[in-house]
């Protein structure tokens, strides 16, 4: 009994600690003078997506899990964190939740296409395939199939698979590189000011 109380107590304390920053953020929003954007009143939303108990706003569980698997395959962790660690699925979900029904539908069509191909070729949904089969499937989509093969043949068949892949990759890429992890990956060192711009320092007329 005592042990159970102890465990419950520690869980509750942990939950309270986890909630504290978001409560503080909520209060600062409530107190902010009107007519300021959240940014102008100093709200830092960068930790919102990592909140414990996060739930998707738009995607269902299967779609969300599929997106996580897909993003991890497209930008895997190397010696730096990948798309999964950058929570790109959560950012994409947030943005989609605010999008037009048409954009939402387009995204789900692309995600559904991957699952459809997976069912057709491997008889299982994409997220349940082996890593090897996932790679095989994506490699097939990653490059456009082009027509009859003769040079100059303009009768290229439309390749919906490639289009869907590109759309998903684009979303994942922009979500990744707009995250803090992604900005660092791009080489941003956290500095904002670049100091005086030196410009061309060659002596007059000497551009070799």
């Amino acid at each position, binding site marked *: 009994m005592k042990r159970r109380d102890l465990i419950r107590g520690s869980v509750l304390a942990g939950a309270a600690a986890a909630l504290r920053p978001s409560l503080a953020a909520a209060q600062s929003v409530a107190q902010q003078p009107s*007519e*300021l*954007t*959240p*940014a*102008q*009143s100093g*709200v*830092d*939303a*960068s930790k*919102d997506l990592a909140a414990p108990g996060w739930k998707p706003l738009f995607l269902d569980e299967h779609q969300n899990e599929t997106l996580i698997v897909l993003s991890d395959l497209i930008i895997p962790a190397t010696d730096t964190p990948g798309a999964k660690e950058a929570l790109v699925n959560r*950012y994409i979900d*947030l*943005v989609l939740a*605010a*999008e037009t029904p048409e954009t939402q539908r387009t995204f789900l069509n692309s995600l559904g296409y991957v699952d459809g191909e997976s069912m057709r070729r491997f008889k299982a949904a994409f997220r349940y395939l082996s890593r090897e089969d996932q790679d095989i499937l994506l490699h097939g989509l990653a490059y456009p199939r082009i027509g009859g093969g003769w040079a100059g043949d303009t009768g290229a068949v439309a390749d919906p698979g490639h289009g869907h892949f590109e759309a998903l990759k684009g979303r994942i890429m922009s979500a990744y590189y*707009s*995250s*803090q992890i992604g*900005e660092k990956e791009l080489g*941003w060192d956290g500095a*904002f*000011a*670049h*100091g*005086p*711009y*030196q*410009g*061309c320092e*060659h002596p007059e007329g000497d*551009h070799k």
Partner: protein
Amino acid sequence: MAQDPLQTTYDAVVVGSGATGGWAAKQLGEAGLKVALLEAGRAVSPKEFTEHMPSYKLKYRDHSPEVVRTRPVQKQCYACMEYNYEWFVNDLENPYSTPPGKPFTWQRLRILGGRSLVWGRQSYRLSDNDFKAAGRDGYGDDWPIGYADLAPYYDIVERYVGISGATEGNEMLPDGQFLPPMKMSCGEVQLRARVKAKFGHTVTIGRTAILTQNHNGRLACHYCGPCERGCSTFSYFSSPFTTVKDALASGNCTLLTNAVVSHVDMDTEPNKTRGVTYVDRLTRQVKEVRGKAVILCGRRSAEKR
């Protein structure tokens, strides 16, 4: 100064606190005239500048649906973004119409300083090629003034504002009172040399209201990039921290924020004004400010003239 602004008759009522209104209030106030400066928006504080905030700190990383929903017109300009959209009017609350086939993107701000907070900062002198263009190409009318009439005023403004640029001696773009120019890259130096050699034309660095050295109590630019979110070192020219500040320091200027001017009140005597009527944006009360002269410096008034 403790006088009730609604019981005072001002020498001049200036409507709008942007680039033009700020100058009018400064010049008149410093000359000893009593000025009322009316601004439709609220006051602005450097605390709300966000030029150094990375976009991953924004909930939508600058793809906010709130901006799309409430600023469909304003966001057509890059300067209206998730960082600062509250500076711009809410298009849903401020609709306007244009003649068929003549669309117009009307950028409007509701903040002290107006568009001077988010302007593009490029600053060029017009020349007689502009003022007397009709005489050469036959289109429109020549201006009743020429470059020589305006040049001394350009001098005053440039010395105060701080315009960085290169002196070129080119009659199309008369030289001004420049701070040192920003440097050209190697490629730009090459381009400039080749264009001059092959075509006889001048490629010059942009002339811009951004400081390349400390100037009039403001710091040189630190090249962070997104000026339109505000500048904590005041390195680009915006009226609240320059002309409006000076106008208020003169002791002769009363600033009324949240004052949306609805019309100019005409006197019984023909062609004489007695001031303006405005609506207090927050209380919706209708009030009058009396003045012997009214100077319209707002975008709305400028476009209706």
